[in-house]
């Protein structure tokens, strides 16, 4: 197992390298630069700034410089927020996004599994139809509709939650964003769980367990759940990577200072280093979570072996 993890980490290096290279050159092909703003800098100042950040060097040299810095863990300065380095920006925003994303993920996994199991146990009955209806709604209504509706209902009409803001991480400030992030995921998990649970309940070892006279609870929780949870495990990898690296929509609507907006803002402002930093962070999260999921697979399902 350890060898497997090690090998996977080694293969991650070329993947990261390809992603970094593609992102670097794609970004540079785009017209405009970090200092071509609408208010316009005088040509001398612009030239000085570009010289200071090495933007006048040939592209390959900039690329080599960037890679060198990256290997030393230096993401470089942000061009549009000159007081911060990219590392500082992530140190500030990432914990916030991770907190929200992790809470949403845990909520989605718990609630989604329970709902999916309820649906599977009541197949083609009222409970099933209710869960299916909820899941359809959750996966159809886009986040940018859910978020303002939550603000409108809970914030303005019933005055239970603050409308937005981070409030130094107060619990009450997290409820709205976490709910918004979690709802579509709950829908996906519930659907996956329903399908795999129905399948799992039909399998031979469940029939045997029932024949042996085990209680319903024991059959479902101890035996069926273990087989049914596999699709959820493989869903968790990409979902965790996406949730933990922040959501543009949720962070914008609820005014949360996370990293979700970095990518969009940075790409639009040609803040090259910040774009690259975001791409690298997202890629690392994706790789790590996919690895964790594959390891989890072997833990949950003893039939899976990595040699």
């Amino acid at each position: 197992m350890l060898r497997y993890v090690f090998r996977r980490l080694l293969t991650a290096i070329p993947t990261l390298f390809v992603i970094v290279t593609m992102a670097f050159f794609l970004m540079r092909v785009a017209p405009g630069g970090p200092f071509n703003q609408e208010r316009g800098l005088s040509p001398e100042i612009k030239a000085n700034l570009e010289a200071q950040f090495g933007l006048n060097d040939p592209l390959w040299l900039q690329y080599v410089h960037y890679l060198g810095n990256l290997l030393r863990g230096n993401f470089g300065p942000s061009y549009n927020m000159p007081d911060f380095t990219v590392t500082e920006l992530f140190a500030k925003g990432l914990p916030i996004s991770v907190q929200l994303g992790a809470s949403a993920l845990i909520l989605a996994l718990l609630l989604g599994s329970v709902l999916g199991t309820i649906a599977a146990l009541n197949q083609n009955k009222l409970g099933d139809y209710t869960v299916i209806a909820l899941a359809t709604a959750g996966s159809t209504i886009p986040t940018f509709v859910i978020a303002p509706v939550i603000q409108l209902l809970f914030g303005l009409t019933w005055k239970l939650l603050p409308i937005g803001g981070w409030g130094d991480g107060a619990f009450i400030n997290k409820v709205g964003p976490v709910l918004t992030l979690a709802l579509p995921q709950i829908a996906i998990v519930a659907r996956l769980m329903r399908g795999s649970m129905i399948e799992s309940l039909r399998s031979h070892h469940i029939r045997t367990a029932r024949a042996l006279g085990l209680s319903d609870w024991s059959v479902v929780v101890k035996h069926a759940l273990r087989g049914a949870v596999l699709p959820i495990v493989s869903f968790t990898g990409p979902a965790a990577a996406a949730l933990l690296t922040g959501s543009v929509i949720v962070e914008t609507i609820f005014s949360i200072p996370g990293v979700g907006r970095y990518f969009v803002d940075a790409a639009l402002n040609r803040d090259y280093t910040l774009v690259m930093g975001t791409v690298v962070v997202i890629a690392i999260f994706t790789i790590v979570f996919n690895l964790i999921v594959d390891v989890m697979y072997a833990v949950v399902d003893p039939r899976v072996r990595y040699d």
Partner: protein
Amino acid sequence: MTDIAATAPVIVGRSLWGDAWARLKANRAAMISLYYLVFIAIISVFGPWFVPHQYTTIYGDYVRTPPSLTAYPKADMIETALNDAVKRMRVEIKEWKQDGERVTVTVTSTKPIDDRNIRYLDRSDAFDNTKIESKSPDGLEVTMSTSVKQQYFLFGTDNTGRDLLSRTLMAGRISLAIGLLAGVVAVAIGVIYGAAAGFAGGKVDEVMMRIVDVLYSLPFIFFVIMLVVFFGRNFVLMFLAVGAVLWLDMARIVRGQALSIRRQEYVQAAEAMGVGQRGILLRHVIPNLLGPVVIYMTLLVPQVIILESFLSFLGLGVQEPMTSWGVLISVGAKNIGTANWLLLFPAFFLVSTLFALNFVGDGLRDALDPKDR
């Protein structure tokens, strides 16, 4: 009695599509959704011509007017509108009264009042057809009468006083058009690419599918933002490009189908009977591919609509004064405290359309997939 033999029913076999249509018709959720989609499409395409307001017209006196089934101006708004208009004339109101449709107002001033001042009343969105009834000999006092201009704002108006009904319909036109446009582009590229890979097989297939895998592994949002950066604010070009990104799934599905269809017994039978490549392609492969393509397309259109709304929400998509459901929802989200109808109406249109598209897609899948019965 001899007629019976003559009218013996001719047995007509049901085609694949006839069969699918019959099954779709039996699916009530899908049929209701289909009618609903047709309804939304018709009101979005033709509606803006029948709504009395242009989607760009600004009614300065009706900023953020709540939706109402009765006509504006309301009784209490007449006085405000009158005061506003008279203030612009730089005169004083002496008295005013409303008499059915007409409002009569008497104004005074310390200087003689010019007749042309009545245009200030006409310019107001609440009044129309102003006439001078009488004038005092010294010209310091004028009595004017004007008729109340009745207007309906069923969905209310937005922050600049534009009718939300016509804007929502116009937005529907744009959102649906973009969904279809990008959907068709994605399907066209995907089908051609996937079919080519599936047919060529071997090394060519290997290489073509590896390219798809590489494109797949790049973060999707990165692609989209790069496209925005390249194509700027030209949304038609941008959505052609978005369509050009979304073809990956389609290519995979079509390739898989093409590979499996080629190995079916009926294709081998046709080959054994001497049917040429062209005949097999037209008679067997394409009809059997159409099912998954149609299903995927109905699921792709809502994806594109969501994507468009997402980009417009971030301010990267459709630009003012043109509008789309995403633009309207983003404005609505910023004004939920003071004008929640700006969010609720467009959100209802968007969400109900997405629901309907999903139900139709599910219905088509059930109808066209013979294995899943």
